[in-house]
């Protein structure tokens, strides 16, 4: 291919600009990891969650999450027999330090861990004006914080309240499914810290992943299925009152 001097002069600055973007979007080096071989999701078994807050604390430590903001949190639902569609929900400091003792006043209590649903058709990705938030080929929704404008349009578009503007960095922040860990063969910080196994990282493309057997034998649900976001955080034993 012959490139003239004039073409070279045009191409060089374009390549310099593109190279910056290439570097910014390159994940941490994991030489043996192939994105095309994975499709990440998470399984949450509500019947196993005891509301200890270990997952919230582990996430905060692992990802340097600022106080008052949450990449993951735990909610406690209290659903009374008389008013099943209007549950009483609390999540003091995201459930980080556990919950106050439940009252013995009838109804049922249960805990619901929440995090980014890593949606395949994510509304947050759709609305980002510069494409700073994106879905990776292995199914994680990530944010390029070197590119994010901090406009908060994605925060408005997320139906699950999983995003926030980082108070120091002034860009959007959210759960990355511990992408820096899972691409190295580790599990997420929250899954690792869960004492009851209520949270399980799952790879839908791995035929040996226990999630396949679990999905075949249990009735699982995603949050707000009417939003049609392709959410990939599956809940076992999810009560109809959960929002």
């Amino acid at each position, binding site marked *: 291919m012959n490139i003239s001097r004039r073409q070279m002069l045009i191409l060089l600055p374009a390549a310099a600009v593109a190279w910056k973007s290439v570097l910014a979007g390159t994940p941490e080096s994991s030489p043996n990891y192939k994105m095309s071989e994975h499709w990440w999701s998470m399984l949450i078994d509500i019947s196993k969650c005891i509301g200890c807050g270990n997952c919230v604390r582990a996430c905060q430590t692992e990802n340097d999450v600022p106080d008052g903001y949450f990449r993951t949190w735990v909610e406690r639902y209290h659903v009374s027999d008389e008013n099943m569609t209007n549950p009483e929900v609390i999540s003091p400091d995201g459930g980080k330090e556990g919950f106050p003792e439940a009252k013995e006043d009838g109804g049922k209590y249960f805990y619901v861990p929440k995090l980014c649903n890593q949606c395949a058709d994510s509304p947050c990705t759709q609305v980002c004006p*510069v494409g700073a938030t994106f879905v990776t080929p292995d199914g994680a929704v990530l944010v390029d914080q070197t590119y994010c404008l901090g406009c908060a349009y994605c925060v408005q578009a997320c139906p699950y309240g999983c995003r926030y503007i980082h108070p120091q960095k002034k860009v959007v922040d959210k759960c990355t499914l511990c992408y820096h860990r899972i691409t190295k063969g580790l599990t997420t910080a929250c899954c690792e810290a869960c004492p009851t196994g209520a949270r399980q990282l799952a790879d839908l493309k791995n035929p040996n992943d226990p999630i396949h057997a679990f999905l075949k034998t249990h009735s699982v649900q995603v949050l707000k299925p009417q939003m049609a976001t392709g959410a990939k955080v599956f809940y076992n034993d999810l009560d109809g009152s959960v*929002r």
Partner: protein
Amino acid sequence: MSGVEGFMYPNEIELHWSVLIVLYPYITGLVAGAFILASLERVFNVEAVKPTYRLALLTALSFLLVAPLPLQLHLGHPERSPEMYFTPHSTSAMAMFGYVYLWYLMAVLVFEIWLDYRRDIVLLSQKTKGMTRWIYTIMTLGSSNISKRSLHIDERVGWVVTLVGIPSAFLLHGYVGFIFGSIKANPWWSSPLMPVVFIFSAMVSGIAGVMVIYMATTKLRGRKIDMRCVDTIAMYLFYTFIIDFSLEMLDLIHRIYEADESFRSLDFMVHSKLFFSQIVLQIGLGTLVPLILLGLTQVAKLPELARKRIYSFAGALTLIGIFAMRWNVVIGGQLFSKSFLGYTTYKMSLVTKEGLIVAVGLTLLPLGILWVLVKLLPPWPEDHATQGAAAD
């Protein structure tokens, strides 16, 4: 945490879009509305509104120049905003802002103003001296031919630009409505009616804005208000307002009748946190009162002084009402939890980047710009006539 009732998802407690994002649709609405009023004279030959034609164009330009500032100040990283031009994300409604804005600013508004004022600019570049002469000479862009044929071409091209400008004005503000209306996660915003409501409310605010500015500036200059002109503008304001109010009520009745899962939450909000801004300011003082007053001028033969007072009062209330509408959309849409189980409170700061003082400053800034533009390019009919006579 204080200010929260019921349950909010923990990341929802703090609002992410502040009063500056309220100003953004308010200001762009004034631009679109003012331009549409100007187009009445140019395209639809409504001679009666001619005295406000140039003033409406300059008003639109003044507000348009300020429109991106609240957005820019709101961004966490304003220095990265050019990326919206260089690497726009094709699926994002917001990504198109830069292009829609530039198109409207350069291809429509600035071009039309330049064409309309070109003869005046050439004459002023010859009449004035010193620095002013230089400014006008630059503004001629090297085109000093003001022959009859040349001015005729200006007129024809200007007509085409206005014709293109009308759908562009609809695009500019309909698009702002789409930014909100397309968010399916938020039932307060998610509605296909949103862009249409935004367009009509924009026309209402722009028409009211130009009417009030025209009456105020004419009084300040000690001139007589052209009653035929303001009567016509008030008539257009009245009928546009009826369409706007009908659309808003249609949206409201639809929500009440459907009463879907979000209704209980939204209904509570309208009766509590938004009661003053929505029921009292937007619907009561900002819509029903001006509609009744303007309606009165349509059916009763009122004396000139009474009409003048009604127009000023109704115009000012309309501007407040439309601001309240923008507030209720932007702030109201963030006060309830997407879990529909609780509510938060918006605490406006005073002196921060997104505080009250900055918001007031940004609201007044277009009036300052308009003052400069009016000095540079006098829009008054009598000046136009004088210069016209000088040229002939």
